[in-house]
């Protein structure tokens, strides 16, 4: 049962109370989210300082550098990896979400079991895959032990490993909205489809998929965007060889000490995120 928020009356006491409640949250958002972004924007228009940091003059040089071939390649790789990861998540996550949605009493338990790994530690889970995949890792050691290979397989430090890491990391984010969508699906619809002569696959295609569109879109959004801006996974699983936008930005702000360039790259990433969000017509409240 869900309720509408009651009608409010605006008496002075209540307005003061409301302001008191909202103020800290709004201050945090304003001060620690918007202002920093503004500063990043400002920095992207400045020149790099001698020891890192920024200094005048104002220039749009960073942005013009952005569109040279190197950054373009990184951007394209990021989009490609994010897209592939999202697609794989969708393929893997849909049957799982369908299973959970139809599992009756155990729904919550099964759902929690999916979400549980996600909430423990992203870093640790990424490290777990490193433990499995690296040259001295479990898989290679096992394969060598049974003499299936003579040299360790390069399972880690490539794009494939990054995609695997991302899929593993964000699969629960695909499953959750899919589940929410599929759970609302009236099982009677599928019975009706069967009654009218449709095979399970046809029913899936003509009934389930169209009706779970909202969940699919939400899931893709919740996976694509973090993947686009991923830093940790390409860094650890890609070994610094698979550079995505996130790595570039981090690099510019630490090692390379070219803050304006890093700022421009970060803003471009942010712009891409906002674009994707806007393109799919999503507003904040729809996600919950």
């Amino acid at each position: 049962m869900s309720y509408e928020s009651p009608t409010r009356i605006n008496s002075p006491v209540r307005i003061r109370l409301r302001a008191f409640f909202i103020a800290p949250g709004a201050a945090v958002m304003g001060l620690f989210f918007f202002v920093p972004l503004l500063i990043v924007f400002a920095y992207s228009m400045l020149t790099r300082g001698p020891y890192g940091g920024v200094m005048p003059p104002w220039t749009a040089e960073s942005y013009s550098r952005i569109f040279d071939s190197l950054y373009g390649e990184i951007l394209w790789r990021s989009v490609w990896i994010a897209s592939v990861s999202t697609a794989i998540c969708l393929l893997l996550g849909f049957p799982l979400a369908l299973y959970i949605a139809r599992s009756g009493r155990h729904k919550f338990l099964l759902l929690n079991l999916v979400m549980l790994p996600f909430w423990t530690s992203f870093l640790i889970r990424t490290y777990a895959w490193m433990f499995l995949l690296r040259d001295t890792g479990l898989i290679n050691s096992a394969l060598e032990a049974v003499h299936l290979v003579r040299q360790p397989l390069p399972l880690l430090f490539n794009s494939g490993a990054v995609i695997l890491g991302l899929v593993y990391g964000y699969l629960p984010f695909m499953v959750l909205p899919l589940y929410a969508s599929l759970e609302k699906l009236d099982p009677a619809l599928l019975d009706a489809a069967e009654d009218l002569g449709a095979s399970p696959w046809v029913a899936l295609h003509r009934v389930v998929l169209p009706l779970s569109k909202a969940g699919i879109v939400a899931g893709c959004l919740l996976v694509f965007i973090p993947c686009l801006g991923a830093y940790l996974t390409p860094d650890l699983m890609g070994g610094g060889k698979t550079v995505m936008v996130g790595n570039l930005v981090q690099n510019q702000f630490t090692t390379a000490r070219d803050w304006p360039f890093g700022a421009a790259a970060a803003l471009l990433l942010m712009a891409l995120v906002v674009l994707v969000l806007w393109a799919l017509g999503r507003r904040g409240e729809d996600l919950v």
Partner: protein
Amino acid sequence: MKRFLAVYASAAYLFLYLPLAVLGVFSFNDSKLAIWRGFTFNRYTRVFHDSALLEAATNSLIIAVAATVISTVIGTLAGYALWKKRLPLLTNSLYLSLLTPEIVTGISLLAFFEWIFRYLRVQLGMHTVILAHISFSLAYVVIVILARLRTFDPALEEAGLDLGATEWQVFRRITIPLLLPGILAAALLCFTVSFDDYVITSLVAGVNSETLPMVIYAMARRGVSPEVNALSVMITGVLGVFILLAGRLEQSSSRPRRHT
């Protein structure tokens, strides 16, 4: 089809848990390599003797607790206010902050602090980390609180007003007690998110405030890490318990049990 789904689901769950399980098993391995040599608690004891590790763990704990307390309070108040009166600007900002890539949040906060430090004689340290954690965990708290409020009957507050309580008294005596499971769930979530953060923390931590994720990252990067497995198992265990608790609280008695 049901059978296929069930088999598939089992495989999927295996995929999700296998790496962690492997990590767990090998944390008891008496060898640095990934070949089983013998059972030992060695690594666990080593963790507790590593002073750098313990210091990092303490830092992480302090930061997480501070950020959780502050974030939960601010987030609960904000969520409640948003439930009463919709403010699309604030809600959308919160959700945007949730979806913003961590690297962007991290460098923006780094730039922000660096700019502020031109005027205040402060450095990057625990305090900047705590502020950073508050800023990105706020959205989580608000989401949980709003979700909980959606099942809250407004008539309960009206009844309180009707019986003579002011708005503030209603909030303290009726709303908060009934919201408590949700608030605790939000706090646990907040703690987990804060404890585990690497990207943002590494950018704003400065020199002297290493956190546990930063240590783990360094160890993972280096590849040689007898203690990381044990550490990972412990952290996963504790956080896992927290999350299960949070989940329990979120679903607990949000609906009154119907009595005939």
